[in-house]
């Protein structure tokens, strides 16, 4: 019967797909959804860490649709497989908590990375960076290419954007102490809208003839500003920098409108997540103030909510933009 052939084929395929699972530590890297370059890059880093540490079987998995319900099904199957640790980038900070608590009850170590879950659902959360580091980085990106100092302006997202406002506050705080010859002349808001951001960038250039750099801590604004600088033949005069997706921004590094930009590095994030998960499996306690080694990336210290910040945003310039633009 046709059906039996089908079932036999299915069973055979299923058995082929079942990889032998006898490595000592099994760590599952659960992502929001598969088929996303950012997470594929994180998995690459996780593989690297698994090889470095040795005796680790890495399970890279996630749902097709980025929903909490689908991710719960994935976690359920990992619980059934009795993995040693789950490192998850969660689709929902609350909805995953009950199932992750169940995982913990059955002896599985749980950490979240990138997109966190509420503290009840995990031992550690790994942030790609933190407010202070980001604020300092965006100024440093401009200052590095302004040895004499000069006027800079910030093109942000919406004036109500919580993240951007916090980063800008941190940037302002760090200027007098670490970058005394940088003069922040204005902060304008492009609302993460290409058209509005373009207008605001044009306005900055018109209003401040001595402007040396535009800092846009938003992926939309940074592209708009770089386009304005390119269109107005100001390459070499005004340097655009900020937080940018390498794939979107490569052309402006190539044409010189920007010297360097930064963003979180997903490879290091996946890499560090595996190190943290392994440390927990090996019995290290997650408590406020505890310090964990994360291999070549360095080390992290847990704060009051057992969260850790991995590192300053990763810098992209002419030397590496080609490589990263293919990833995300």
């Amino acid at each position: 019967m046709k059906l039996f052939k089908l079932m036999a084929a299915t069973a055979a395929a299923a058995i082929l797909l079942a990889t032998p699972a006898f490595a000592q530590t099994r760590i599952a890297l659960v992502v929001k959804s598969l088929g996303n370059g950012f997470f594929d890059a994180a998995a690459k880093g996780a593989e690297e860490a698994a090889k470095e540490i040795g005796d680790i079987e890495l399970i890279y998995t996630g749902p097709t649709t980025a929903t909490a319900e689908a991710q719960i099904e994935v976690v359920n199957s990992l619980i059934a497989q009795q993995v040693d640790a789950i490192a998850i980038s969660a689709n929902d900070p609350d909805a995953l908590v009950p199932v992750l608590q169940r995982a913990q009850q059955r002896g599985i170590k749980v950490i979240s990375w990138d997109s966190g879950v509420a503290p009840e659902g995990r031992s550690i959360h790994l942030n790609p960076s933190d407010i202070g580091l980001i604020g300092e980085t965006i100024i440093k990106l401009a200052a590095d290419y302004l040895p004499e100092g000069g006027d800079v302006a910030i093109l942000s997202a919406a004036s109500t954007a919580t993240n951007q406002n916090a980063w800008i506050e941190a940037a302002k705080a760090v200027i007098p102490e670490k970058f005394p010859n940088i003069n922040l002349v204005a902060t304008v808001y492009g609302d993460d809208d290409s058209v509005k951001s373009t207008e605001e960038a044009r306005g900055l250039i018109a209003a401040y003839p001595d402007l040396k750099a535009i800092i846009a801590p938003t992926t939309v604004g940074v592209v708009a500003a770089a386009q304005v600088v390119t269109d107005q033949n100001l390459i070499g005069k005004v340097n655009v920098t900020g937080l940018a997706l390498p794939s979107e921004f490569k052309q402006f590094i190539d044409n010189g409108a920007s010297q360097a930009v930064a963003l979180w590095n997903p490879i290091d994030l996946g890499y560090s997540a595996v190190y943290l998960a392994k440390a927990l499996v090996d019995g290290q306690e997650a408590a406020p103030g505890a310090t964990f080694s994360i291999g070549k990336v360095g080390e992290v210290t847990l704060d009051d909510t057992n969260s850790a910040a991995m590192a300053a945003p990763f810098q992209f310039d002419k030397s590496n933009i080609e490589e990263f633009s293919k990833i995300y």
Partner: protein
Amino acid sequence: MTDTTATGRHLPDRLDNPVKSAVLSWESLLVLVALAIFIANSFASPYFLNEWSLSDMTFNFTEKALIALAMALVIITGEIDLSVASIIALASTMMGLALQVGADTPMLVAVGIGVGILCGAFNGFLITGLKLPSIVVTIGTMSLFRGVAYIVLGDQSFKGYPASFSWFGQGYVFWVISFELVLFLVCALIFYVVLHHTNFGRRVFAIGNNATAARFSGVRVDRIKFVLFCLTGLMSGLAAVLLTARLGSTRPSIAEGFELEAVTMVVLGGVSILGGSGTIIGVVLAALIMGLVTFGLGLLNVPGIVMSIFIGSLLIVVIALPILFRMWRQRKA
């Protein structure tokens, strides 16, 4: 396949040996498929045959299957309801609002189910009162209901549901048998009796086979359809209670994509998408098969993309199989 149109037209079919027709039925095919997948799973993963694994598996389908039970009746009448997942979102959001004003567990359940029924009644009114096609109406309310949830919540969430409420989605009646599973089995039994052993059920089939003929035979077609849409609303509300309790929180994106999975279960269960035929047993088996497939492949860490390809193929194969079989029989005859 137990095709009631066929039994109507070809009277001699009734004289078939009942054992033979049972063996050749769609349901026995589904039982075979379920058994085959169960056996394949047991061989493929050492973690499958474990009471907790099997219990966890049931959570993959119970909520969707509850909706599929009511959806089956709607589809048998030749209509469809694509707004079910959005009803869950709205019902869950309203439960969250009720929680904010201090509702206790029985109140939360009442709100969830009540909002579900109201949403279903709204669909039913547009379809039977204004004579609009159900597919158009429910595509509209699909955006409408979820839209309201998004307006209320934005990027926020409701959480902090009481522990007694969480029990509905996370609790066990005894040993590894979850409350969700028990509720599903009880509902399945009720739907089985209603569809296959009451006048109401017979009228549902009559409408699906020929609504005009049914009306001339004195069946109150619109009233029955209205009741059925209220019923899918009710079951969606019930699913909202379970899912909200299981997640312990409400977000406007809750239950996204559930409508298609519920329809898949119904069609896989042998209910004709054109209406007029189908059984509850088939739908229950289809739900079980979907759960077995997704959980089994999950245990092997098969990527979700491959899983959707597998379910899509399974659906096409089981739909095509009886048609091919019929063509083959006709050529032989």
